């Protein structure tokens, strides 16, 4: 794979209807390890994030991930990109914590022993070992988001996209989940309203009314964002 193919690339991406565009003429090349996306409700930032793993297909333009066209190779792209949703409840499929993490590894040609070993390792990593046999739907909000992280990362994606992962969490769990996201070896892209989450990030992109209005180091981009609010 050539160097230029690495990372996430948006080329002339637009989305929505003519009279109601969601995103307009987005050109981005995302290669930094920690990238934040901020913007008002309805600015199009969630749509932008969903285009990275093909949950939303742009009406025009192309998105590529490590050289793979998201439109045509969505399945391969989704193995590269792990996605964390705002509401972890929607991500839980299986009744218990351990079963839900193991669920990610189904249909990947792994033996039951391999699945169990990798599941146990992931539970350990996210401090969920003691909850392994608990019913997943009875966990607290913070624990559910931890489970979502474990269930996504057990598959070993190279990129993690998180769409407002801390919006439903209290301050303490926000800090916990943020700390874990920042500690990942993967490239991490976080859509957020919690500006503290972006401390120490490499790059912040500000979306407003479907366009990129600022794209810079966090300090510069966030002042532009705050200026937009006033």
């Amino acid at each position, binding site marked *: 794979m050539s160097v230029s193919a690495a990372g996430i690339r948006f080329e002339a991406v637009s989305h929505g209807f003519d009279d109601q565009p969601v995103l307009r003429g987005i050109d981005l090349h995302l290669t930094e390890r920690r990238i934040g996306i901020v913007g008002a409700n309805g600015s199009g930032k969630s749509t932008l994030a969903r285009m990275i793993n093909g949950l939303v297909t742009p009406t025009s333009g192309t998105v590529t991930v490590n050289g793979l066209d998201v439109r045509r190779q969505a399945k391969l792209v989704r193995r590269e990109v792990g996605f964390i949703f705002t509401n972890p409840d*929607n991500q839980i499929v299986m009744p*218990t914590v351990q079963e839900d993490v193991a669920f990610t590894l189904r249909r990947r040609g792994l033996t039951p022993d391999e699945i169990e070993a990798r599941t146990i390792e992931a539970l350990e990593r996210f401090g969920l070992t003691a909850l392994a046999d608990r019913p997943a739907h009875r966990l607290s909000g913070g624990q559910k988001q931890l489970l979502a992280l474990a269930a996504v990362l057990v598959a070993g994606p190279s990129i993690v996209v998180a769409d407002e992962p801390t919006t439903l969490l209290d301050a303490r769990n926000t800090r916990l989940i943020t700390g874990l996201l920042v500690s990942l070896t993967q490239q991490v892209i976080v859509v957020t309203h919690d500006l503290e989450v972006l401390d120490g990030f490499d790059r912040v992109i500000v979306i407003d009314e479907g366009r990129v209005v600022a794209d810079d180091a966090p300090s510069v981009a966030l002042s532009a964002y705050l200026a937009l609010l006033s």
Partner: protein
Amino acid sequence: MIGLYRPGTSLLHRAPALLKLGLLAVAMVVVGLVADPLVLAGELVVVVALYAVAGIPPPAAWPQIGPILWILVFAVPVQVLVAGGSVEGWTTAGLMAGRLLVAVALAALFTLTTTVTAVLEAFQLLLRPFRRWVDADRVGLLVALAIRCIPLVAEIVHEVLDARRARGAQGSLVALAVPVVVRSLYAADAIGEALAARGLDD
């Protein structure tokens, strides 16, 4: 089935789900055919022993078995009355009560010692002969999602009821059903999205 599983390492926990399911079916037939109260009493002892082997304490077993006792409180006198209050009447009623108790206790034991994953795998094994017509994986996923959606929909109903109370509204059934259905459909969309993101998009 949801959240009832009690983790453990006993023989009953380790036995293959399909074997347990098969034995459960056989036991149900046998219990249904028993006509001797002594044999039935023996079966009750065996059930208690099985719970002991599985390491299920009475407080965990009670919520599963308790409700059937309430039914028996009514069903047994009715049975006796129907039989005219004779000795045979009492025997028939006792047999019926014992059969129900054994059947429910055994079924509960299966639920308490078997994970949903194991049940799904058993399903898939059972469906294997039909794989030309049925995608066992997909059926397994369908069952898993159906089980998963019970607490989810229960929570939605709960929240809608709360919201109604907060606004002081005493709505009709339609006023409850509409928001529940709408929110369930939204949740279904979101779950579909999450499934696709987790690689189950075909």
